[in-house]
């Protein structure tokens, strides 16, 4: 081809390659991170850590600020975000709750379909824990015992739609065993119930249980994860132990109001991609025992659909009335 064509092509290539750096959108005022928990809750702690990290590593030209909109099991935060259509300086941390709650709650005015996915950040595995002096050494022991005395063994956990109960429903369905589920509103109370011997088992995030396991009060009998977590190399995952159930991660990521231009989404995607590459973030994942589940907006949108459909099925099986 002619020299001129080559130069034009090279220029175009250069422009395309420089694309992200030339993205038109850049935030000009502090960005609000909406979380659906009060101060101290899981999403809140993550958001605060992210704010700290972004500032320290100078990843963005403006400040990020956490806005707690707790209430309604996440619905208040969702409504707040959905109503801010077109706002380019608001993002929110979503969790699995944002996907499942609207399925069972008629009062929900908005679902994730009314928002723009940005990025998926982490997948939180869980461990199945029992009190250290319990007779169950493996998941099989627990399931066998549950089969022998249906409904007598007890698990402590959160609400009916929480991941704890979802794992329980899946296990009960696949093994035919049956045990009771007792809801406690706070993580502290759930742990207290287990340590006090009032319940037999719980599904708990590893960083919450970590110290108790180290102190010898709790024991892990199985892992709810794709691969074994580093601190528990000898404990099988549920799949390895032979339970063919889909892995149910607790998922956390970022969404924003719909009606924003593609370059805005691209900006935030890029921001979080840079964030998850920092050593501080990697160390955070290690400390908290999270799995890196980074996905960009398009894949995340597909993930939302698969996850929602999966949850709908599980809830229907469990007998919870599903409204949408």
């Amino acid at each position, binding site marked *: 081809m002619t020299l001129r064509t080559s130069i034009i092509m090279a220029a175009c290539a250069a422009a395309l390659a420089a694309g992200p750096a030339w993205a038109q959108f850049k935030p000009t005022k502090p960005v609000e991170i909406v979380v659906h928990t*009060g*101060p*101290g*809750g899981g999403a*809140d*702690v993550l958001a*605060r*850590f992210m*704010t*700290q990290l972004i500032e320290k590593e100078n990843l963005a030209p403006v400040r990020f600020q956490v806005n*707690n*909109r*707790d*209430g*309604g*099991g996440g*619905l*208040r935060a969702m*409504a707040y975000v959905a109503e801010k259509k077109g706002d380019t300086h608001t993002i929110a941390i979503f969790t699995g709750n944002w996907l499942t709650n609207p399925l*069972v*709650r*008629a*009062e*929900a*005015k908005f679902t994730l379909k009314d928002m723009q996915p940005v990025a998926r950040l982490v997948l939180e595995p869980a461990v199945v824990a029992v009190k250290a002096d319990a007779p169950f050494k493996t998941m099989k022991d627990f399931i066998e015992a549950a089969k022998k005395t249906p*409904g*007598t063994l*007890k698990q402590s956990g959160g*609400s*009916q*739609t929480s991941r704890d109960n979802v794992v329980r429903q899946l296990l009960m369905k696949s093994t035919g065993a049956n045990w*009771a*589920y*007792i*809801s*406690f*509103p*706070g*993580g*502290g*109370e759930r*742990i*207290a*119930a287990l*340590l*006090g011997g*009032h*319940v037999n088992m719980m599904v708990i995030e590893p*960083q919450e249980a*970590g*110290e*108790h396991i*180290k*102190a010898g*009060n709790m024991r892990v009998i199985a892992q709810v994860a794709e691969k074994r977590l580093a601190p528990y190399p000898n404990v099988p995952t549920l799949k390895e132990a032979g339970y063919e159930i889909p892995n149910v991660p607790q998922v956390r990521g970022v969404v924003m109001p719909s009606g924003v231009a593609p370059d805005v989404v691209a900006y935030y995607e890029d921001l979080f991609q840079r964030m998850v590459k920092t050593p501080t973030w990697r160390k955070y994942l290690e400390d908290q025992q999270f799995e890196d589940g980074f996905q960009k907006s398009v894949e995340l949108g597909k993930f939302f659909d698969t996850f929602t459909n999966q949850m709908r099925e599980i809830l229907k099986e469990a007998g*919870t009335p599903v409204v949408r």
Partner: protein
Amino acid sequence: MDVLANLGHGFIVALEPLNLFWCFAGVFLGTVVGVMPGLGPAATIAMLLPLTFKMPPTSALIMLAGIYYGAKYGGSTTAILLNVPGESASVVTCLDGYQMARKGRAGAALGIAAIASFIAGTVGVVALMLVAPPLAKFGLAFSSPEYFALMVLGLAMVVLLAGESLVKALLAMLVGLWIAGMGIDLFSDASRFTFGNSEMLDGVDFVIVAIGVFALSEVFANMEQREEGTMLPVPKGLRNLLPTMAELKACRFAFLNGSVVGFIIGVLPGAGSTIASFISYGLEKVVSKHPEKFGTGVPEGVAAPEGANNSETGGALVPLLTLGIPGSGTTAILLAAFVLWGLKPGPLMIQDNPELFWGLVASMYVGNVMLLVLNLPLIPLFAQILKLPSYLLYPIILGISLVGVYTVSSSLFDCYMLAAFGLLGYLMRRLDYPSAPLILGLVLGDAMERALRQSLMMSQGDLGILVSRPISATMLVLAVLLLIMPLFRKFNSWRVRAIEENG
């Protein structure tokens, strides 16, 4: 002794000038936050978290803890002067504290509140220091049946708060229980009494009801009088601004009562300072020689609950520090703070970070002294607020109440609810229904229902679980005794009258 040596090290840490500064900053801020209704220590601590990242964890914890127990000191101020509970735990202080203010004893009430808070706060710290680990184990033995029994015991206190008509008090309590049930049900995920409104999904926030029923109803009731509003008498002279020796002497048991009850209830994760103050108040009334005077402005009625809600902070730190289990909203944020600072909360935390624990304990002693010194001289100043003419005072109360409620969740819907409850409170006043049982029902209803259902789930539907366990059985028996007591008293007075007539 080991403990003394550790405490010595703790004081060395706590008395460092920087830590003294942070301690003061914390308790001062806490007092301010406690005075303002709506804004609580939990939200304040959350807002200050980013600031703490640049500080060493021990100093940060000293400051945050200062906010936590400082807020309990501040909450009594508006409760006594304006019948506005600044903190949910100050509701009980409103009962006798405000009545004392109406009688011109506002300064005395404030003084007793401060002194009770100091004594109980100190006792709480001592207990935290000495018996934390074994007490934490005791706390673990408490599960749903025991919580249920504790709540029933608390509700039985209604009998003691009844005033003239027990029926009206029980009715108010039932309304409180009903309001407590509104919202999402944790176990079945059903929405109860939400009227299809997503704002109602969390039920009604306690602060809104308390401020509406207490403060707003007071304003409305006073607005009825067409003539220049009756101002509350302001005591003249320094002597009248502080509690008399007689009053302090009368509170001797109350100080002890508040300290012990508050601390023990604080240790139980999930039971809060509101329950502690109600039970302490009830206990004080039971042992008092003049129980019928409670509610009209007796100093013990201020000392007991104020003491209880202060030593409760010491108690709440026990499960947090020894097991990493948060017992309340504020301790949950402290737990998050620990995680963000890189500490690992759990059974090994004190072992791994002794200077943190002992520095904190020592700073709590210091903080309590600071608070006493801060609060006592400010009493005459605060008491002057009562000098404001009603056309200034009542709008100020309305303003503080509205803003306070809005800060809870930035929701206008909450403000409408506030108005509705203010109206309810006004109606209750006019029809002579006591409002304390309603608050009691609201506070306890949620936790009690949850505890009952959890217990039944644990026992597969067998109610026997509530009486087969020793702790819960004891508390239930106590509750029943409390409920039967009025009958005894009536019986006794018949007997006495019969003897007199015959003899």
